[in-house]
Structure formats: C-alpha cells, structure tokens
C-alpha cells in the first residue's frame, strides 16, 4: 500500500530560528491526490523536497505504507524511494532526446527487458500525445509539450508516489486550465498516490481529492475542497480559499454575534456570551432582497458603495445602514444596482461560519 504518513517533520534553514517546516504531520491516503496549498514561504515546497529526500529533516518521520523512508539517523536516499517528481522548471535534460528523457528512469529497472522498455516509452508518449516526437530535443518543443514530456518521464516508471511542484505555473492561462483537467484525468487513470504543491487555490480545488492548507510551516487545515470552502476553520484558511467577508464581533448570545449594532444569528453555535468571535460569510451566500420594512433576524438594510460588472455576475461593496460594517456581495447580472441605492441583505444563519483565533 502507498499511503504516505508524515509525522512531526521539522526543518530549519541555515540556523534560522523560524522553522521552514514546523512539526508537520499529515496523512495521504493510498491513491489519493492531496494538494499542499499556501502562499510563498509557507513551507509547501520544502515539505515536498523532504518527502522526495532532497532535504533531510531535523526531526520527524516519513512513512510509505509500512516502509520507513526517513527517521533520524536512517534516511533513504531519493533514488531508492520509488517516487517520481514533476518540477516547476520541468528539469528536462537538454542533452537527451524526448525518448531518452522519458526512458531515463527505466534504466534503473533491471528486470525490464530492452524491448519492453521501448514499448513502455512509446506507449507513454502516446498517452501524453507526443508520439512522433521521440528524437526531438527538449529545446525544440513548446512549453506545453515540454510539460507533457515531464509528465511522461514521471509516470513511465510507475512510481509508488508522484510529487508535483507547481507544475503549471510556467504555462499561460489557457494551457494551464487545460492541463489541470489533464492531470486530474491521468490521476484517475493511473491512481498513483500524489502530492501536489501549488499556491493557486483554484488549481488545488479542481485537481485534488483533499487539500492541506499550509501556513508558516504548519498545517492550518486539511479537508476536501468543499469542506475547506464551506467550513474554513481559521481566518487564514477562509481568506486564502475563495473570497470572503470576515466579521469581527462579540457574542451577544450563545448563537448571536454583534458588530456595531449589527446582530448576526449563527446556526448551531454555542458561544460564551461576551467572548470575541470572528465569522466568515461568503459573498455569494448573501442574498440581495428588498429593503426590509420591519426589523427581522439576519436581514439588514444596506447602501451600495461600489459595483463592478464581471460579465456573469456583479460584485458589490455595501455598507449596512447604521453601522461601519462593509461587506462584499455577489449579485446576478440580470439585476443591476447603482452606487447609492439602498437594498436589503439576507444572511442565512448557516452561511455564518465561526473562525478560530478571533
């Protein structure tokens, strides 16, 4: 089995006090595609390089199934980890042809006959739609083709674990979108346990089974794309995944948060009255309604301050009447509101997600 377990990994660079990876623990299920997501400097690439064996951790263990790859004093070198990696730069060898690049990893599979080797290279090149390019050199290929050579080189060895380090960041927007689906398709076809590093939340959401959001060398939250989007646990995760409104307030009742006169009822909450609470409210979960005649729970009058037309929707910035609370709201393109116009907002109690660390 190829489930990966990281236990308490820690690494500091060059005697710095701040750890690049700080007591990080994570499990990746057999055949799962897990994205390591975070801003630059969060330790996601360091984590990947620790898993690959290019870096030695100061503390912690790395297990694949029942095989220990790294523990203090016992570190398996990269070449014996049965992994493959796709690099951000692709790292194609410029002095080798496409076929030689793809076939390189097979040289180390001793039990593979020469004929079988060539068959597998040809088959792999067909899968990535590069049949006929065997004799080309990487310098003679377009960016997208180089990318596919890198993919083929990694998959042809049938690795237990596949590591990807921001493999799409060098492609232009259209190709990037196309390759997202391509990578997902290949993952479904081969079912290899995969660790995917990216700083692009949209990419992570399209590609992965689960996402681990990293912050300052630690895991902030792990979950399916849905769970992370719907129930972010911290302000950092809420703001990093999708757009959101964070409302800082004080618990007025076990299920009510108040911010400058605005009282929001939160579904299923049990706050200690008087405690500080932060809520995440996604802009698309706020309904635009008629201005309320009489006060009602979670319905407010508000004034449009700014509106931006985005084609299929409108993005509004509104101020709730009688408070300083500014919210982002998404409205349908069919009904356009102008700045200065007064509208009603209805926020479903289940759309208010309490965040840790208010």
């Amino acid at each position: 089995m190829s489930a990966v377990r990281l236990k308490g990994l820690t690494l500091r660079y060059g005697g710095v006090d701040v750890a690049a990876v700080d007591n990080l623990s994570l499990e990746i299920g057999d055949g799962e595609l897990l994205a390591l997501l975070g801003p630059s400097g969060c330790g996601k690439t360091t984590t990947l390089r620790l898993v690959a064996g290019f870096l030695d951790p100061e503390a912690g263990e790395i297990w694949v199934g029942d095989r220990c790859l790294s523990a203090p004093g016992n570190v398996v070198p990269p070449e014996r980890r049965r992994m493959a990696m796709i690099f951000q730069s692709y790292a194609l060898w410029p002095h080798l042809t496409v076929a030689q690049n793809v076939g390189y990893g097979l040289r180390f599979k001793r039990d593979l006959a020469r004929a079988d080797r060539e068959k597998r290279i040809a088959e792999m090149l067909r899968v990535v739609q590069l049949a006929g390019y065997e004799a080309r050199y990487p310098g003679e290929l377009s960016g997208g083709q180089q990318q596919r050579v890198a993919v083929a080189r990694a998959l042809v060895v049938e690795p237990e674990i596949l590591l990807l380090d921001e493999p799409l960041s060098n492609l232009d927007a259209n190709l990037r979108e196309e390759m997202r689906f391509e990578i997902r398709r290949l993952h479904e076809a081969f079912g290899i346990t995969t660790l995917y590093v990216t700083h692009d939340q949209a990419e992570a959401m399209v590609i992965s089974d689960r996402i681990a959001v990293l912050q300052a060398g630690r895991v902030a939250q792990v979950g399916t794309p849905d769970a992370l989007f719907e129930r972010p646990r911290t302000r950092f995760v809420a703001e990093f995944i999708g757009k959101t409104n964070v409302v800082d307030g004080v618990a007025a009742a076990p299920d009510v948060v108040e911010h400058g006169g605005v009282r929001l009822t939160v579904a299923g909450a049990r706050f200690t009255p008087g405690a500080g609470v932060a809520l995440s409210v996604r802009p698309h979960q706020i309904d635009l309604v008629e201005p309320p005649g009489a006060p009602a729970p979670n319905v407010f009058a508000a004034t449009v301050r700014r509106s931006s037309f985005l084609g299929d929707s409108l993005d509004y910035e509104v101020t709730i009447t009688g408070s300083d609370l500014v919210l982002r709201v998404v409205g349908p393109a069919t009904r356009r509101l102008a700045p200065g116009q007064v509208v009603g907002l209805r926020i479903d109690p289940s759309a208010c997600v309490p965040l840790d660390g208010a």
Partner: protein
Amino acid sequence: MDRALVVWVGAALALVFLMAMPLAWLTVMSVSSEAGTTLGHYRYVFTDPALAKSLWNTVVLAFWVGLVSIAIGAPLAWLTARTDVPGQGLIRGLVLASFVTPPFLGAFAWEMLAGPNAGLLNKVWRGVTGSDHPLVNIYTMPGLIFVVAIYTFPYVYIMIANTLALIASDLEDAASILGAGRLTVARTITLPMVLPAIVSGFILSVLQALALFGSPAILALPAGFHTITTQVWSFFHFPPKIEAAAAISMPLLGATAVLLWLQKRLLGRRGYAAVGGKGGTRRRIALGAWRVPALLACLAVMACAIFLPYGILAKAAFSRAWAQPVGWDNLTLANFTFTFFEYGATRAAIVNTLELGVITASVGAVLVAVLAYVTNRRLVVGHQIVAFLAFAPVVIPGIVLAVALFIAYTRPPFVLYGTLAILFIAYLTKEMPVGYGQSDATFRGIPPDLEDAGRILGAGRLRVLRDITAPLAKSGIIAAWCFIFIGVIRELSASIILFTPNTKVMSVVIFDLKEEGQFGAIAVLGLVMLALTFVTVAIVQRALGRDVLGARE
C-alpha cells in the same frame, strides 16, 4: 562530514602552497637583513632616485595605457554594439585576436616596424621623403604606451560592448518620450549606464600595464628607463638583491589589490548597468555616409595591433634577413630548420611549454571544476570561502608571484627551484581565477533540478554526475582548459624569474634570442605560439558555441 573535511584539507593545503607560504616569505624577505629586521629595503626602494623613477615610470605608463585603451576601446565597442558599421564580425574577430596576442610578441614586431634605424616604417619614410630622421621612434615612453595599449584596449571593449548589449533601447526611448533630445539621452541615460563599464575597463587596463614585463623589457630598456617589473627582474642579475626585489614588489601588490577592490565596489554598487536585458530590443544607429570611414578607422586600429605586426613576423620568419625587401633571393625556410632542429634551446623550450601547458590546464581544469561544483552546490560548510580563495590569486601580478615562489622554494623544506614544478605552481596559481570564473559560470548554468530529477528516478549521486552533470558541463570545462592553456603558453613575467637553463619555456627563449639578435627564430617561435593560441581559441568557440569576448565579465 568526512567529505567536507577532504575538501577543506585540500583547499587549505593548496592555499598554503600556492599563496600563503610564498607571500609570507615575500613579506619576511622584504624586511630582513643579516643584522635582523629592517625597513632599509623599503627606504632604499623609495628614496634611491633611479628606483623612484622606475616607480613613477610605471605610474605614467599604466595611467596613459588606461586612457588610450578607453580612447580606442570605447568607440570600437559602441560602433560594433550600437551602429550599422559594416564588417562587425570581422572587427570583433580582430579585437579577439588582439586580446589573445602575447603583448611581448607585439612589442618585438613593433621593434622591427618602428625601431629608429632598421625599423621598416622608418626605412620606408626615409626612402620616400629622403629625410635623415626616423618617422617614429618606438624606444620611447609614448612608443611603449602605444604598443601596450593596442593589446590592452580589448579589456575596455569587452566591458563596454557587453554592457551596451544589455541596455535595451527602451531605456533610451523612455527618456526621448519625456522630451530629451538625442544628445541629452546620451548624456543622461546611456553614458551614466555605461560609465561603470568604462571605469572598470580603465582599471583592468591599468592593471594589465602595471603587471606587464615583456613590453617594457623590450622597449623601455633600450630607451634607457625602467618600470617596476623590469626593475624586479634586474634585481635578480648578479649580484642578486632579492630583498630589494621583495620590497619593490609590495607597492605593485598593494596597488593591484586596491584597484581590484575599487573595481569590484564600482560594479557592485552600479550593478544596474546589467539590469533590464530582458524584453527590450536594441536598435542600431544608422551611420549613413559615415559607415565606410568608421570601418576604416576600426581597420586602422587593427592594422597597428594585428596586420602590421603579424605581417612583419611572417616576413621575418621566411626571410634570410628580415630588414631586406621581400623577394625570391631573400625567401628561406632556414629559420624554421634552425628553430626546430638546430638550435637546442628552442626545441627543449617548445617541449617544456607544451608539457607545462597540458599538465597545468588538465590539473587546473579538474581542480576548478571540483571547486566550482562544490561551491555551486554548497556541498561544504564555508563554500563562500573556497570561492573567494579560488579568485584570490588575481591580486598577485605574475612577477610578484614569481619573486614570492622563488624565495619560498629555493630553500628547505621545499626546494623546487630549477624544476618544472615551480613553473607549474606559478602557472596554476596565476590561471586559477580565470579557470574558476569559467567553471563557476558553467555550473551556475546547470540548475540543481536537473540533478534532482535524475535522483528521484533512481540514479545515485555518482550516476547523476556521470549521466547528467558531466555531459552538460563538458563544454564549459573544455573552455576552462583552453583558457588556462592559452594563459600558460604565453606566460613571460613569472617565467622570466623562475626559469633555469634546463627549464626554459618558449617565451623565455624568445627573450633570449632577442639578446642574440636572432629575429628569424623569434618570428618562427612567435608564429608557433600564435598558431597554438588561435587553434585553442577556435576550440573554445566551438565548445561554447559563442564568441569568447562575450564570455568575459
């Protein structure tokens, strides 16, 4: 950890043998006398009128060489980098030829061209005008400055041409669109951006002129004046005054260190000159009617540096008497027979030179490759210090290094004087910075990802080195080999101090032959040296797939 230890011990030992011990001896010798420690040698060097004059002559020579080099190199660089002057490839090729021509060969050639009595140009002048006086006398300070500068200006050219090539026309356009006229743009944008390169080229030229031994020895001595380098050399004549040689070496060493520090600081702070090579295109200025005159001006410079000197060397090599007109009765191959088969010293010297060239280049190329790999991949703690040490010998002028090695290795525990080994050490030390610079650039150009990609697919560290790193670094290492080889076969200023009758090299023999007036043999040896150099340069260009001039920083 043990891996790091090997490198450390190796680097430390190399440093001690190549630099620390010789320089320590040099310093000790400069303050020692039979009566104990003394500053008497320094007092002698700075107060003796003849010696003070030689120090001053060196300053004058170096300063003017710097200025003349700018006057030649800057316009040439601008013309080839920024205008549509015809024959750009030819001009660049000739600048390269001037760059690799051993300056002392140029000096010999100009002795034959512009010596006051027998010099070809002067004979032609007298023949045409009937005048009794020579047109030019090369045995003068201006003559010396001229001959040094025509082989030194490529340093300025390289600095400026490479900088101009990086300045996108955008930067100039940005100023134009804001209302600056053509001259204002040149004054406020282009010139300030090129200024660090100009000053840097000036400093490099000055450094060359300071350290040069051959040309002053050939042209200044007959003219009756000394420079520091010729003075150092004369201290080795009987009765030797090694202490004085050590003392007079110190200002040269100090000046070199200060100038290099200045240059580094200048380039470091004004590094923006190299910024912005991306995206912008570089437009060429149309010279219009000035295209042909500009080309002729370039060719006139090249006539002085290449055509005339090479021509007279070829003429001398194939003539019975070099000063007589070309003709069938004056044509001979006797000079070749004499040089290769009859005169014992030349054959031994050619063998010695080739042996030293190949051994130094091979050992050196491997050494700098290992050092550059270790420093680039940060394989050991303190890799920055290793890099610094590899560059350090650049501050030691050849003749100073030779004096230091002479002192260090003529006494126990290491008596190397009189062997080829001492020349090997001198050459290896002297060429290390050039070789290291080349290797460093090579490994910098191989991203570590390429090696990691091999590792993760199942190749061990050594296998990756063999399959991936070595093939990618090959051409760069060949280039380093060639640079070291070229440096060795033309070396004179250290060899002239360290040779003994059994360990003469080509440059030293050329110098000896001059005393005997054997101009034909000098010309033959000179042509052999040039042929070796140009073949090696061709190999580099092929290996790197580009022009050597662009490679220098």
